[in-house]
């Protein structure tokens, strides 16, 4: 068993928010899903205060070794989640982490307070890839904005608070440090990288939302670098993700300091990817060898390239 912020997990593999719908998967695969649930904890898709229909299609673009999505966070809204989704998610055999997003501190506070009141929910993940209305920047792109948000909502819950970091920022480790300083219990990364695809026929953006988020094996090396940078900066646990498709990819993220590893886009290709990757990871850990020689407990310092402008 693994201890993650007080949650007892059977193995280190969970899902990335928005990459597995346990309710829909149970409709498709029946109760076998509960008997052989692929993850040691389940992270919900992002819940917002008001219901959202999501972005107009097309929502997907297959890219080189990956995909770009522009889904737009469709969800029933907080009330719909609590009334409709939560009773079904509470039947899962693993801890439930609810992911929430608000466009300002008041919205996030309302979400955190409502989620805090529900004992079925083990932990809260904050999606901070939402534009700050004043600056136009994603809240999670700016250490000061992110720090202010965490400071505002931290006192509202005793549940573990995980901050899901965006990779679309200049210095992800600085943002992680701001989250830690204001009391976050863990950080998770990386979210998708902003990307665009053009319709070959028209030369205009293919996706209904114009741009989308890139995921899949194409972003794995970026994820490894960012997880490494964050793990070196903070002392709180790090959930690493980005292009994980095999046990060795999870092993590598753990080698640079991740406590847990989330599987995302690979779930689309293999509904039981979580189980497979957890098994492969266990074999690698038992064998004590992987692609990396870095000791988990002693992260190696990164070489800083000082360009003279910082």
């Amino acid at each position, binding site marked *: 068993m693994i201890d993650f912020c007080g949650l007892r997990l059977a193995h280190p593999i969970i899902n990335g928010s928005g990459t597995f719908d346990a309710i829909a998967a149970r409709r498709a695969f029946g109760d076998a899903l509960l008997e052989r649930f692929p993850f040691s904890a389940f992270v919900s898709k992002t819940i917002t205060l008001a219901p959202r229909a999501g972005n107009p299609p*097309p929502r997907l673009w297959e890219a080189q070794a990956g995909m770009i999505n522009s889904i737009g966070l469709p969800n029933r809204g907080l009330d719909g989640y609590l009334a409709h989704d939560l009773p079904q998610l509470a039947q899962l055999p693993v801890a439930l982490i609810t992911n929430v997003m608000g466009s300002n501190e008041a919205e996030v506070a309302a979400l955190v307070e409502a989620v805090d009141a529900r004992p079925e929910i083990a932990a809260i993940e904050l999606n901070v890839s939402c534009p700050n209305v004043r600056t136009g920047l994603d809240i999670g792109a700016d250490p000061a904005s992110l720090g202010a948000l965490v400071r505002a909502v931290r006192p509202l819950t005793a549940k573990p608070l995980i901050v899901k970091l965006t990779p679309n920022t200049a210095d992800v480790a600085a943002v992680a440090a701001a989250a830690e300083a204001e009391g976050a219990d863990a950080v998770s990364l990386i979210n998708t990288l902003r990307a665009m695809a053009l319709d070959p026929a028209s030369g205009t953006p293919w996706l209904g939302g114009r741009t989308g988020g890139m995921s899949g094996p194409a972003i794995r090396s970026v994820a490894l670098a960012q997880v490494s940078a964050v793990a070196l900066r903070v002392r709180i646990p790090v959930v690493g993700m980005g292009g994980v498709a095999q046990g060795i990819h999870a092993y590598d993220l753990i080698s640079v300091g991740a406590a847990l590893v989330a599987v995302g886009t690979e779930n689309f290709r293999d*509904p*039981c990817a979580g189980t497979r990757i957890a098994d492969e990871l266990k074999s690698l850990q038992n064998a004590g060898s992987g692609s990396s020689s870095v000791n988990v407990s002693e992260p190696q310092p990164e070489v800083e390239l000082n360009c003279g402008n910082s």
Partner: protein
Amino acid sequence: MRPTAPLGRRRVAVMATIDVGVYRVLVAHDPDGPYPWPGQFYMLSTVERWGGGEDDRPYLPRAFSFLGAGREGQLSFMFEDVGPGTRRLAELEAHDELWLTGPLGNGFTEPSDGRRAILAGGGIGVPPLAAWACELDGRGTEPRVLLGFRDAAHATGSSMVAHGAVREATDDGSVGHHGFVTDLLAAELDADDHAVVYACGPPGMLEAVRALCAAREVPAQLALEAGMACGFGACYGCVVPLAEGGYVRLCVDGPVLDADRLDAVPMHA
């Protein structure tokens, strides 16, 4: 009724491949899967070399309605080589292996109120109609099957429909009626419109069928297609807009939808 898919993807062998004009038919052996219901689909990818093709694709599995199913686990699919996914699948030979997830989604619903079944579609929309014609025929109600194709090379696809009374149309007049499948459908409904129409085909054809049925107040069930990453409700990519507002995921709430739920068939894939 609709069977539930076993959890996860299965590694299955290709039993045979058959060229039918411009189409390729692939027969897989899926002994551990349930007998599917017509209109349901599977997510397919190859075990070897799924990726690294043109433009470093394919990456995601591809959704296909099944063409036919046997009681011993035979499962056939039909496709045309139109992109990196179908190109790789078209390379497969007997004994090569596939990853397969399914059967997924909801299929067609049987006619009620004594209505007769008219199956209308064409092109790459043939597979679910062929499977449905087989099922209906087995129940003793031979359906009318109306199929439209671009030309004679594509019209070979109609040979995959082994049941029902088939009529064909081609855009160039090389086979059957010179014109659209909706011409045939209009004539059928002129003769007797106490019917339910089951349709699958390219978006333009499907929209023409939907509009014709809506104008005549004939119920229709449309087997739709959309870009899909997972097939089991995880990615939220395969949505179509509903007439009542909002979206529905084709993978878990379709791919067959009652036509009156849509204002129009989406033109993107």
